[in-house]
């Protein structure tokens, strides 16, 4: 590149370079090396100087610019570590038994344990119910006025909150589940095979969507 051309592509001002480094370090999933910064930034940038400016800017802030080996990253200020405790939650998927039991309670509430077992076709373990109670997604409802006066289960407000529902009545019915393709025996693909022909599928489909 000749000098005239280079000047056309003059490096951005240092303030801009600092912004760039800031954004890259923020978004990167791992610490970023100087070389990597230089590769991402426009020709003629000085990532080392930008880093030095950035580091000073974050002095005394809630997050710091730290060096990790030969690379750089943002880290929470050590004295604020206690605020991060909640970040450490480990998420785990509910077991199939639990999600099915929960679904039955949601759709059939108030429902007794015997009814849940009848619908699922297998016994419901004590642990499953306990887990859902502990998660505060189900709670005990009114006792059923039948022999033995069995307890019933209903879903909680915390359940509605977690699943983004305004009320359990808003759950789609069987027809609507079928309409959404959820009642199919086919496994649900993550991606519709040919999303482009979405609306030109089999003609009988419209009847599936009628309420």
């Amino acid at each position, binding site marked *: 590149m000749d000098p005239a051309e280079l000047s056309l592509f003059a490096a951005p001002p240092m303030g801009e370079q600092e912004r760039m480094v800031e954004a890259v370090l923020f978004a990167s999933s791992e610490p970023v090396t100087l070389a990597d910064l230089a590769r991402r930034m426009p020709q003629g940038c000085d990532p080392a100087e930008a880093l030095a400016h950035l580091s000073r800017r974050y002095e005394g802030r809630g997050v710091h610019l730290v060096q990790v080996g030969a690379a750089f990253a943002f880290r929470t200020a050590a004295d604020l570590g206690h605020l991060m*405790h909640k970040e450490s939650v480990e998420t785990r998927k509910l077991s199939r038994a639990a999600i099915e039991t*929960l679904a039955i309670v949601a759709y059939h509430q108030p429902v007794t344990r015997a009814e849940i077992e009848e619908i699922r076709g297998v016994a419901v373990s004590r642990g499953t119910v306990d887990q859902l109670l502990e998660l505060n997604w189900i709670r005990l409802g009114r006792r059923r006025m039948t022999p033995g006066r069995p307890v019933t289960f209903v879903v909680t407000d915390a359940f509605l909150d977690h699943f983004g*529902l305004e009320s359990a009545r808003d759950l789609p019915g069987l027809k609507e*589940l079928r309409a*959404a393709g*959820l009642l199919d*025996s086919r496994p649900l693909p993550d991606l519709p095979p040919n999303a482009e022909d979405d609306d*030109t599928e089999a003609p009988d489909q419209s009847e599936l969507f009628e309420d």
Partner: protein
Amino acid sequence: MSKTDDWLETRPTPDRLADEALIIDVDGFEGPLDLLLNLSRSQKVDLRRISVLQLAEQYLKFVNQAVALRIELAADYLVMAAWLAYLKSRLLLPPDPADAGPSAEDLAAHLAFQLERLAAMRDVAARLMARDQRGRDFFARGQPEAASICRALRYDASLLDLMRAYARIRTRDDFRPYAFDREHVFTMEQALDRMRGLLGYMGAWADLTSFLPEGWGASPTRRRSAMAAHFAAVLEMAKRGQVDLKQTEIFAPLLMRRKGEA
């Protein structure tokens, strides 16, 4: 798409070819409304001032040409064509004072509204997709900090998981293996056992129906099943030489007696 206005004229071949290409392209439209919206563009006016009459004519022309070219049009295109033909005739005729309900102008205005609304939704859909998007134009923190002393276990499930679980259970019901409902069924083995026990009590010719078990005569389903089972059982017994059977005519009562009774 451009020269749709003057289809009524006799036109040179290139134009007609263009029209045919357009018609072949009918698959590219998402239904009659989409097609109408495309046709309306040729009027090059604000959708609010579009001539529905002219649009209806264009549409009908389009459909006629498709039919002439033996292009099969989906039923909804034809339904729309019928409706537009009706609308067109009402727009052309003076209003009938005896005719209650919406005027042709109301119907035309509604169609114009639908087209304008669809066009508007497409416009905002494009504007929405042109916005800066997360993961493409702007980014979240790449290294959320999770390391910490207290570890809590959190169970998660999405609404989709929940609905799928329920769908799974219900589908299982729908597709459970076909099981025979035993409650109203009398098997041949049962009948055979029963009749063997009754064999000793058979004397002179007796009607088979008089041997049917108690409580199986009332409901048609149960009577049918018991009758069939017992009929099969006595045939079996006749084959083994245990009973004699006779029937005087078709559909007459089936009579039976123990073999060797005279």
